[in-house]
């Protein structure tokens, strides 16, 4: 089992290494280097030379990659072009803000998804299932920016209950942030919950149809005891990995949601750095977002391994 965990960990590191290569090569082969695309029309003479010097664009690409990777491992992403700041200083508060948003959405979303998923599965094709599943289909298919815009229009503009747009400085404290994040959290949690609830539903339905549950029914095990002791443990285990993938997939959606609400998190930084053509920041964001994705998946693997006695000895291959 430890070998398995170790193997997953190494695979995660390999993935991150390839990501770093991809982002580096990607920025390298796309037309225009960091300096010319950032300076645009002023890209000549002294300004260009100074920029090239500062980013080290005059040394060969492979050496630059090695020194960049070496610094990144030590947690130093270098300098941002637009703010003339260390990228770490730019990233710090943004990561904190996005973390607040994401964890709030996860804390609300996962329990809600479990409850809704189990309800819809146990009352399959009855009224509760039909209503919840229909709402779920709507909330997971409609793009984030549409549900967010509608939330602002209805809750903030027509009902005037909550502020529609977040107008706070980047380094705001948690309690000042709280009333501002309610709508973004709802927007993100809605989609996440819908995806996960649907997944839990079909997983529970599958287990309910299995032989050992039929056996339990025939033996006369009380219904709720059967649900909690036999169905749920078996149904929720495979759900962990999919929940992780769903959370990771939402990283992209969070970008859009943050822009709609003007929320000062990592997502808006993605748009800002790309609009400013601040390629060093884009590179750093690529690595950070990929690390989040890889670690969420790794944690999910760990949880599955620890909770599933059958996997302790079995070599699994994806």
């Amino acid at each position: 089992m430890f070998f398995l965990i170790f193997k997953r960990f190494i695979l995660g590191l390999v993935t991150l290494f390839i990501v770093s290569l991809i982002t580096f090569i990607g920025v390298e082969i796309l037309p225009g280097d960091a300096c010319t695309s950032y300076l645009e029309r002023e890209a000549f003479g002294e300004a260009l030379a100074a920029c090239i010097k500062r980013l080290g664009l005059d040394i060969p690409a492979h050496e630059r990659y090695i020194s960049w990777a070496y610094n990144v491992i030590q947690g130093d992403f270098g300098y941002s072009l637009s703010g003339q700041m260390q990228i770490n200083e730019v990233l710090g508060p943004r990561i904190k803000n996005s973390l607040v948003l994401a964890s709030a959405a996860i804390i609300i979303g996962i329990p809600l998804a479990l409850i809704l998923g189990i309800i819809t599965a146990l009352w399959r094709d009855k009224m509760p299932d039909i209503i919840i599943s229909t709402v779920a289909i709507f909330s997971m298919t409609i793009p984030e920016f549409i549900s967010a815009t509608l939330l602002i229009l209805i809750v903030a503009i027509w009902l005037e209950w909550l502020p529609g747009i977040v107008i706070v400085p980047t380094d705001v404290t948690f309690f000042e942030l709280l009333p501002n994040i309610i709508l973004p959290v709802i927007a993100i949690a809605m989609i996440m919950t819908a995806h996960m609830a649907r997944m839990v539903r079909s997983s529970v339905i599958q287990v309910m149809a299995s032989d050992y549950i039929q056996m339990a029914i025939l033996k006369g095990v009380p219904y709720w005891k059967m649900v909690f002791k036999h169905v749920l443990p078996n149904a929720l285990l495979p759900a962990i990995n999919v929940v992780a993938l769903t959370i990771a997939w939402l990283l992209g959606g969070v970008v859009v949601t943050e822009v709609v609400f003007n929320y000062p998190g990592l997502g808006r930084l993605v748009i800002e750095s790309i609009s400013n053509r601040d390629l060093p920041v884009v590179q750093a964001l690529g690595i950070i977002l990929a690390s989040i994705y890889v670690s969420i998946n790794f944690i999910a693997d760990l949880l599955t391994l620890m909770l599933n006695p059958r996997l302790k000895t079995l070599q699994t291959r994806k």
Partner: protein
Amino acid sequence: MENLKNIFNENPKSSLEKVLDIISTMASKPSGFIGLAILIFHIILAITSPWFAPYDYKAINPSLMLNAPSSEFWFGTDSLGRDVFTRTILGGRTALTITFFGSIIALLWGGLLGIFCGLVGGRIDDVVMRIVDAFLSIPWILAMLLIVSLLGTTTEVLIPALGFFYGKGIVRVARAATHDVIAKDFIVSAKARGHSNISIIWNEILPNVRDAILVEGAMRWSWMLLGFSSLSFLGFGVSPPTPDWGLMISNARGLMSFAWWAVIAPIVGLSSLIIGINLTADAFAKALGIDRSTKAPV
């Protein structure tokens, strides 16, 4: 018994009949029927709308700014005095075209690479899957935005870029589907007969994994539409004054406290199309006997 009947059937069904069979199975359930109806409506609308659009979509008229819906302007006018109804019925054309061709590209390269990896296995498979995993872990939006901002937002950039980024998930599905059939007797005997890899892929594997890949492709289409609209919304998709729902929502959003019609019309257009494609893809999966709901949206 059913299988036996098919084996001894003198007149096997033609492929057209099979397609009609699948469509009628899809339409037999209310959700599938609604999905198909919405999708067909949108496709017909996208093809025919230039002939009955009442106004010019790019005609700017300052005296008609932000008019409420009326008998003259059914959905009102936007902040530049353009007719919202005209722009809404035209707004799906670019998105549908780009994502349709993008999905085909995604299906082709993702499906073939996945089948190839599943068949060959070994070192090549390991390396390719590592790279696919790495691409999966970079958020699509970051990569797409970077490409589009450096190469421009023309159709020639958007179609291959979207096709590439939405194909990597298909690689996994196609590979897994190939693994399911690879150990079966007919593949083993084809190998024993000395068939080449290409012949095995084409004649033995493809017919068996086609359903899974097509269902995945249908689903990718709706995600790609979502992705493309998000790009437009962020200002990295089609460029103005081309009517596009994502762009229209983004432009009208700032003024929606008093001109809600300019934002609601494109929202209804885009949402209904995405829901239509989703319902159709789900019904398609069910008609082919594939359960999609246990998968994550990667």
